[in-house]
């Protein structure tokens, strides 16, 4: 079920009503409702893959207890941790990476002159959200292993933790220490929390329906026909894709966080205005936070982090970025994208500037950013956008051909929208959106923090008007990150 579908419009109020009116007094019943609602939400795509979620749940529930039971016996605890990892990574490996590995092997052999036929290629459908919930369940086993968490004995609560529908298919990838503890404790109906959730949902829908969906046809057109366009159009395509993917994914996260709030649950923030980052390190503290912190906690730090000397730290940084790229999909484009980010990050790390902006935002104590900050933001945006050529292109060959075309036809020509719409409308839209995000840059969880009730109300009305002005029934409205 998509957040932006009619089905969800019926589903959400119904579950909300049952949750707070019918099952209000019994935590166990509320959790059972969460499970049923979540399985219905997920099964709306393909009910067959519910078995994978259930298996992942049962394995990690059991493994968690075994790790805890053997916590003083490091070898045994480690063994059970490996069971969890092997199971979850096998699921991922089979459903997401099987064809990629076979394909890559065949290509490798063909490079040395040995032609193989791809008889092992399988017609595998990628289960939606598999990369998200497998990482979430693994984090539970990791946290028990690292003694940050005690396992739960409540299978219902654990099942609800794994399947919690607002964040099941595209994150934020929660940690058990945050989400499971909320699920096992009684939630109270909190008016302010619910209103805050509704506001985030509205903001998320605006980002998805207005920013991402309206830019999608332009980006699709430019990336599909890059060979026919001059540099000016190709650069425009890259910039617009940056806004599209941000609107799409952060919009999803806002709707997820807002929806969770309706059920009295606080999810972690996933985006903190990454377009205003002053270097690539800050960008990764603001973009897809739940994934970057996952890799930091469960891969980078166990590898030694930055406590192992410069050379090994560089190795560790390279590993997490490449693995992070690979997490996105079974394609060399994502691996190169990850490697590029490692290349951008390493100089920042070597200069000791990787934690420089961890606790502040652009123009922290003033209305306007300094010239230096503007330069830093522009440079970071350019680098990140450039890397997205690899992220967006269907193949690695296309990525390089796209870049080559920019160099070869370095000219300007006005771009015409594939459906004939006025392009200026989209430029104005992006300018207003960026300006508004700048105004609210200090708090990603309160997009409408205006003292005046009238101003708040006017903003709500204008956002909904924006959704109407840019509504297009013909646009494919699935979320980009569902493919990962």
């Amino acid at each position, binding site marked *: 079920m998509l957040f932006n*579908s*009619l089905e969800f419009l019926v589903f959400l109020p119904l579950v909300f009503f049952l949750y*707070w*009116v019918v099952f209000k007094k019994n935590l166990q019943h509320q959790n059972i409702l969460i499970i049923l609602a979540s399985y219905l939400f997920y099964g709306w795509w393909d009910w067959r893959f519910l078995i994978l979620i259930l298996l992942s749940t049962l394995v990690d529930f059991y493994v968690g207890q075994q790790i805890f039971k053997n916590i003083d016996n490091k070898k045994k605890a480690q063994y059970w941790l490996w069971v969890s990892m092997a199971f979850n990574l096998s699921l991922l490996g089979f459903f997401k990476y099987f064809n990629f590995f076979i394909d890559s092997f065949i290509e490798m052999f063909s490079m040395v002159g040995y032609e193989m036929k791809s008889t092992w290629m399988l017609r595998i459908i990628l289960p939606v959200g598999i990369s998200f919930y497998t990482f979430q369940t693994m984090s539970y086993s990791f946290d028990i292993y690292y003694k940050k968490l005690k396992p739960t004995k409540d299978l219902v609560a654990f099942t609800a933790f794994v399947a919690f529908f607002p964040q099941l298919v595209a994150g934020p990838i929660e940690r058990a220490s945050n989400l499971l503890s909320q699920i096992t404790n009684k939630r109270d*109906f909190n*008016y302010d929390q*619910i*209103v805050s959730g509704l506001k985030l949902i509205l903001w998320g829908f605006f980002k998805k329906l207005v920013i991402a969906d309206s830019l999608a046809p332009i980006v699709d057109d430019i990336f599909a026909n890059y060979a026919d366009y001059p540099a000016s159009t190709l650069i425009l395509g890259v910039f617009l894709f940056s806004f599209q993917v941000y609107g799409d994914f952060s919009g999803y996260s806002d709707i997820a966080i807002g929806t969770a709030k309706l059920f009295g649950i606080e999810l972690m923030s996933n985006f903190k205005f990454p377009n205003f980052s002053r270097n690539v390190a800050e960008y990764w503290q603001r973009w897809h936070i739940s994934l970057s912190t996952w890799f930091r906690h469960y891969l980078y730090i166990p590898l030694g982090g930055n406590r192992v000397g410069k050379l090994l730290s560089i190795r560790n940084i390279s590993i997490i970025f490449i693995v992070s790229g690979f997490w996105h999909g079974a394609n060399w484009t994502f691996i190169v994208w990850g490697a590029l980010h490692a290349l951008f990050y390493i100089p920042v790390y070597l200069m000791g500037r990787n934690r420089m902006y961890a606790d502040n935002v652009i123009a922290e104590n003033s209305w306007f950013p300094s010239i230096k900050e503007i330069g830093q933001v522009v440079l970071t945006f350019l680098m990140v956008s450039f890397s997205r050529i690899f992220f967006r292109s269907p193949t690695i060959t296309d990525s390089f051909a796209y870049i080559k075309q920019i160099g070869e036809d370095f000219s300007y020509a006005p771009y015409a929208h594939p*459906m*004939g*719409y*006025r392009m200026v*409308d989209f430029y104005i839209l992006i300018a207003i959106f960026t300006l508004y995000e700048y105004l609210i840059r200090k708090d990603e969880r309160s997009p409408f923090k205006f003292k005046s009730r009238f101003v708040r*109300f*006017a903003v*709500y*009305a*204008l956002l*909904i*008007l924006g959704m*109407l*002005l*840019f*509504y*297009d*029934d013909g646009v494919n409205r699935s979320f980009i990150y569902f493919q990962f």
Partner: protein
Amino acid sequence: MKNLILKSVLYIGLILLALEGLVRVLHLYTEDPPRFIDEKLVEKRVPGHQGYAVTGNRNQNFSEFRINSFGFNSANEFNPSKEDFEIALIGDSFIEGFHQDYDDSTGEKIENLLQGVSVYEYGYAGYDLANQMHLINAYAQQFALIDKIVIYLNFESDLGRAEYQPNYGRINMLNSMVFKIRDNIKLLAYGSKIGILEPLKRLVQGGEVNKNENEQPVPRENSDNNEDHIRLTNFKSLINLYGFDKTKTSILFDSRKTSNEFIEFCNSEGIDLIDFSNAFQRSKKPTTLIYDHHWNNNGRTLIASQIAEHFKNSIN
């Protein structure tokens, strides 16, 4: 919970009111002048209405219309005389031309090309050939004074019936409470126009997609010969029933979307044809609007020049 429900209802109501105001102020909605069936059973617009037709979510195409005293969108009043030279241009929404200012219509463009000629545009969205033939027949006296009649015929959609019957059902539906509410609540009219209600309609219809008016026409080679034959039979029936003055009536058509059998029949019967397909094919600029399938300014200019060229010699 009570507080939440009450406040939600209040906020939703206020936001809807604010949106209604914004849609009105920004004139995002399109106006549709009311329709009626007159005493001669001709379907037309209620005279005297003026307003603006809007296409696209963001007001991308905005044009003024004016319904004259006879009930059609035209800069001219229809007062034909023996002394003057008049051309009647009859057709559906393409001729009615709500997508361009009424004073820059196809008729006005013809007048600019042919000095001393008045063009009367009898365009009405939804007209087929039966409507058009009935109109000429019902107002025979008026049309007797008009020197030339051009009927725009969309072969694939205008020959579905062999006899005219007034469509009271459509008029009643458009005058029904539901449609009146839709037209008076501009937010609803706007939402309906931009297709925001389509997913709901699809859900109600069990996932069936409505026929899109922007759909590309089926290539002629794929069309059903039997259907083409029925269309020709209907055409013959209509001209027999209502009469067809070959001395002054021409058919404006697109041969790319018309069967050869029909064209051959017209040629054999001496029916004058104005085919605009070549002009459209040669045009380097688009001939239709971006947001729907009606002719844009370039399309109308090409149509006007085809008609003017056709009658240039008759007038001199």
